[in-house]
């Protein structure tokens, strides 16, 4: 049985003494392989890389600098992301849970309909009214429109309708970036203005 490739490499590199491989003394094939490996290593080691022109390095540094300048400041490291993402996910989850809970209340026949909130013509659940009463969102007509549109839909209906499923509009909305959300808000406001609301 001949020597394995890793054994031949160890012998050719000299990390293992040839005298320690008894097989080598009696096997011409393995001895030839070790000799050829040594010869190829020697041939490969003797290969230089052509040096680029001295002018190349200045040009190279300038190109790298240009690319780096276009890049801006070094990005946040991978390990730093959880410090940002986890709180953001927690907030988003909390908001989603509140929204689902509010609509769940609407599905309960034991809960009486709540008085409507001006200027919305459709009756809103109390929690939605509370939301609109928030000083920061009270004047937000886009939010009012969304609240109105969703006020008649209970949780079961939403679930049966497949809302928030991956690929749905709701799923897309909850995953929008800040700039995309601002654009959505602009479109909603345009729509409100057009309809005279």
């Amino acid at each position, binding site marked *: 049985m001949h020597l394995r490739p890793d054994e031949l490499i160890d012998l*050719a590199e000299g990390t293992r003494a040839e005298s320690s491989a008894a097989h080598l003394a009696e096997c011409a094939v393995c001895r030839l392989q070790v000799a050829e490996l040594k010869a190829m290593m020697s041939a*490969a080691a003797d290969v230089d890389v052509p040096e680029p*022109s001295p002018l190349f390095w200045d040009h*190279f540094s300038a190109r*790298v600098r240009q*690319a780096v300048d276009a890049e801006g400041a*070094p990005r946040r490291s991978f390990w730093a992301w959880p410090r940002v993402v986890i709180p953001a996910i927690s907030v988003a989850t909390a908001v989603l849970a509140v929204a689902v809970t509010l609509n769940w209340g609407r599905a309960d026949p034991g809960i009486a309909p709540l008085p409507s909130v001006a200027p919305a013509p459709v009756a809103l659940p109390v929690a939605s009214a509370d939301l609109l009463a928030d000083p920061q969102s009270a004047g937000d007509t886009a939010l009012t429109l969304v609240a109105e549109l969703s006020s008649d839909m209970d949780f079961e209906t939403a679930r049966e309708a497949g809302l928030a499923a991956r690929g749905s509009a709701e799923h897309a909305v909850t995953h929008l970036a800040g700039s995309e959300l601002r654009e959505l808000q602009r479109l909603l406001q345009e729509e409100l203005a057009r309809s005279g609301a």
Partner: protein
Amino acid sequence: MRPVEPGLADLDERALVEACLRGQSAAFDVIVERHRRSVYLLCYRFVSNHEDASDLSQDVFLRAYRGLRSFRGQSSLATWLYRIGVNVCLNRLSAKKPLSESIADRQFVDETAESATDRLLKDERGARVRAAIAQLPRKQRATLVLRMYHEMSHQEIADVLGSSVGAVKANFFHALSNLKKMLGGEVL
């Protein structure tokens, strides 16, 4: 070329990285200047042509800059850049067929005390070996380059390539055997 700020040129690696992270982009110029040649040589060994080696080297530094915050100083900056370089080159090798070396790539040769004839023969032989290395499968090529030209241990190569020491040795064996087949006895 923008002149290197006097204070920056004397900083050690860690201080340079910190200066970069504070927004001193000139500090990154110093890093590039210190390591551009070794990164270029690494890339050249993988692709065997100046054009691709230059593009890949630029990519290595750009990726390094993007990931500078993740450099923790556990290894030297050179080793860190080196790992990025190997990954960039391996990705390129998997995406692109190896290119043969052009005549133009051989023109900038450092003339030494060797005679012109000896130099010419050595260059010709070197070009044949480089062309043969460029034809090796990517893992064999990576193993051979890292082992032969960058003196990495089998374990270090295994870490970079995500394989075992045994696999690295086997790849090295097959790389050398394939070189022998491609070159025949011409360089022996």
